């Protein structure tokens, strides 16, 4: 009898738990649109090259397509961004700038085990641009790559920071515990310096120590920072790679458009406690808009910074190396390394027979970003996704995730000018509360402030929020909620998240479906 009662109690508890779970999980993030196996590294794993970045589409307002010179710049940009960097100045496996053909690479424009460029810094986060921008296509956000390129049987695609990049060419790096095999690509900023004053800067993960493809640095003995200790002390702020797609369009939006869109929603935002403000350049006072905290003014600055910070490649915009240890830089490596090409010989395959070869890699990279199309939404969204679009606006998500802005009416490029940009961002920064705060200030973006992340392309991203803490959109929405704390004001998104929480499971599902259609 007792046993029967226990069984009945157990059954009842199980039913309650199941019902609770059903209510809690009545809505689900449908996951990466198209499936992980059909995007980014999932394709690579099947022996299919990752698709290249899409060319900007014809201007929907005027019908003008990208012109031939812009297209050539874009294509040269793909070649440069795909290059795999060697450490010294002249030890690439194939001639600098050449595609790697007939050497077993899956994509000659995105080599994985033959270097075709030079200049990798003594400290770096990666050794090629696309290594961290390959989801769902090259030029996208951070994704997975096959860790054993060139082997006959490819292993499952994974976080390239877990094995591929830290150990490529024999480099002897210790992989910190926050880089997980199937987790997000993370770079780190230190919140504070050892003396307690604010730091905020990127501390590059890897060094070139142990490189077997550079005979000029046999005595390099650089060590990595003690990431584990800093992690344990709560001194790390993580950032994941943003997508490069559509950045030319975002750059083409005038400040007046950003401000007028913001002004237009003032009466709707006020009751919800949403304010928001631009991050501005300390030099000219105009709105900065690139990066997790809208800290970068332009694609050009963004590109120059990325070359030096992510790959340690010095350039005209960032001419000083982050690590100047001569034992790890090589005796013949010029600094800055990637500069406008004025070589008098053809040794580096940089003859002045084509103006595109005069520009350095980092500048061609910014041309690539400028003319890469915005992420394409699902051309056939489901009925649920269509309904979700309406509810998304109704509950106030679009008060920050502004669905559409317009580029400047007259620009040098006909394909960029006077066209709608469906990026779902107001390009402003907002207080997000203690849950998301990373204690890093950049320009006028404070320690808990972040730029409204553009949602175009969110349908095919794997990880969300600045530190990639989740790959579940529902969780990402919930992370927007944060009450006031002693150190931070309440999240500006609280009012909208409350409205989201009041939706029925079916209505929440429509929003998730809508987001995955973007």
């Amino acid at each position, binding site marked *: 009898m007792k046993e029967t009662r226990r069984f009945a109690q157990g059954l009842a508890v199980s039913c309650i738990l199941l019902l609770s779970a059903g209510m809690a999980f009545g809505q689900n993030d449908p996951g990466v649109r198209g499936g992980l196996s059909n995007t980014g590294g999932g394709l690579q794993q099947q022996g299919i090259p990752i698709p290249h970045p899409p060319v900007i589409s014809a201007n929907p307002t005027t019908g003008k397509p990208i012109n031939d010179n812009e297209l*050539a710049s874009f294509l040269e940009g793909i070649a440069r961004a795909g290059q795999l960097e060697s450490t010294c100045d002249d030890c690439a496996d194939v001639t600098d700038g050449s595609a790697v*053909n007939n050497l077993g690479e899956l994509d000659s424009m995105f080599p994985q085990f033959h270097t075709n460029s030079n200049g990798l810094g003594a400290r770096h986060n990666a050794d090629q641009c696309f290594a961290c921008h390959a989801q769902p296509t090259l030029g996208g956000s951070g994704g997975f790559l096959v860790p054993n390129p060139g082997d006959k049987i490819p292993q499952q695609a994974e976080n390239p920071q877990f094995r591929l990049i830290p150990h490529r060419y024999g480099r002897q790096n210790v992989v910190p515990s926050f880089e997980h095999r199937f987790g997000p690509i993370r770079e780190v900023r230190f919140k504070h310096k050892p003396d307690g004053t604010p730091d905020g800067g990127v501390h590059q993960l890897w060094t070139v120590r142990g490189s077997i493809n550079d005979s000029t640095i046999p005595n390099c003995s650089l060590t990595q920072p003690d990431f584990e200790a800093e992690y344990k002390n709560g001194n790390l702020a993580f950032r994941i790679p943003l997508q490069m797609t559509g950045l030319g369009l975002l750059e083409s939006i005038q400040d007046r458009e950003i401000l007028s869109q913001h002004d237009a929603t003032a009466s709707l935002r006020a009751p919800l406690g949403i304010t928001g403000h631009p991050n501005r350049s300390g030099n000219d006072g105009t709105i900065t808009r690139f990066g997790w905290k809208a800290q970068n003014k332009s694609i050009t600055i963004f590109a120059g910074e990325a070359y030096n910070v992510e790959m340690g490649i010095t350039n005209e915009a960032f001419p000083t190396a982050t690590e100047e240890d001569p034992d790890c830089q090589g005796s013949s490596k010029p600094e800055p390394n990637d500069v406008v090409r004025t070589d008098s010989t*053809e040794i580096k395959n940089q003859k002045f027979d084509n103006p595109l070869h005069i520009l350095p890699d980092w500048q061609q990279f910014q041309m690539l970003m400028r003319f890469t199309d915005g992420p394409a939404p699902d051309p056939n969204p489901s009925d649920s996704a269509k309904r979700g679009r309406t509810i998304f606006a109704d509950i106030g998500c679009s008060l920050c995730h502004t669905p559409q802005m317009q580029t400047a009416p007259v620009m040098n490029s006909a394909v960029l000018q006077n066209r709608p940009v469906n990026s779902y961002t107001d390009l402003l920064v907002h207080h997000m509360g203690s849950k998301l705060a990373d204690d890093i200030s950049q320009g006028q973006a404070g320690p808990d402030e972040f730029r409204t992340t553009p949602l175009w392309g969110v349908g095919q991203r794997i990880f969300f929020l600045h530190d990639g803490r989740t790959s579940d959109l529902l969780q990402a929405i919930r992370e927007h909620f944060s009450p006031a704390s002693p150190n931070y004001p309440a999240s500006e998104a609280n009012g909208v998240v409350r409205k989201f929480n009041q939706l029925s499971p079916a209505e929440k599902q429509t929003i998730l479906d809508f987001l995955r259609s973007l």
Partner: protein
Amino acid sequence: MPPSLERRSSPRPAVGHNVHTTWCLGWFLGVAITSLACFQQSRAQGTTEIHRTLVVPATEILIFDVEIASGDLQILYGRDGQVSISGYAKASAEAKVDDTFFPSVLTIDQQGNHLNVRQTPSPAHPQKAVSIFYRIQVPYRTEVTSKVGQGKQNIIGILGPVKAATLHGNITASYVSKNVHAQVDDGNLDLQEIGEHVEATTGSGNITCARVSQGVSAETIDGDIYLAVVGPSQASVKTGTGRLEVRAARGTFVGSTQAGDLHITAIPHDAWRLSSASGNIRVELPPTAKFELDAAVGSGKVVVDREDIAKPNAEVRHIHDQVNGGGKLIEAHSDAGTIVIR
């Protein structure tokens, strides 16, 4: 006083109203007739467009076969997973095109990852009466076989290989990762940024190839050839005064001309064999270059303008030297031209 001047000076109001009315009527009639004529003419000329977007498998290479009887053809990378075909036609004064034009001349046939586009001649639209332009955006991973009767071809930014042929018109291709085979009967070839090998032949026309890492085979019956930053290559101008100019040859090189000059400027990474019938041959090498020189002329002369090679006198027809200790063999031979070594 001349009559005309007299008429001009006549007081207008005397015949004022009637003259003015008649003039206005005439003016309006003239404008109306002209407008009508213009309208009819513009109808006769006309333009029409076609736009089609096809979904293609993103996981497979697109096999694209295109044949255009006449018109300019541009094939370029757009985005993976789709093909966008745009056609534009404009008729000249004596012809007209309308919305029925493209459906009557253009067939688009897709079977999975195979795409065929055919534009056939239209008896109703004489070739010279309608100018046509096709812009076709394809995935990066596309193999192209293209034929154009009369018109230009421009192929940009794809994996390849590309096999392009034109009877009359130029072919340009750039940023193709695999082999390019381009052939025209009458027209120029301009092939740049090619990942593998280029085979370029033209009956009458010039050939330009730059940054072709796996080399070029170029042949023109009558025209100039210009090569820059190329892997192991061979180039031949078969007749006439066509010139051959080479910069930054990165592998073996074999080049020949008839009456045209042959000029090569490069670091001698590998052996070269240069010949001409009556054209001059000029070889420019860095001052420190190491090479083995074998230069011979029939009736011309050999001129040396370098410190590291003894200058031959005017009667010398053949020199052989190990320059800076020797290196790759550079052979130059001209029947009746002059050879200059700098």
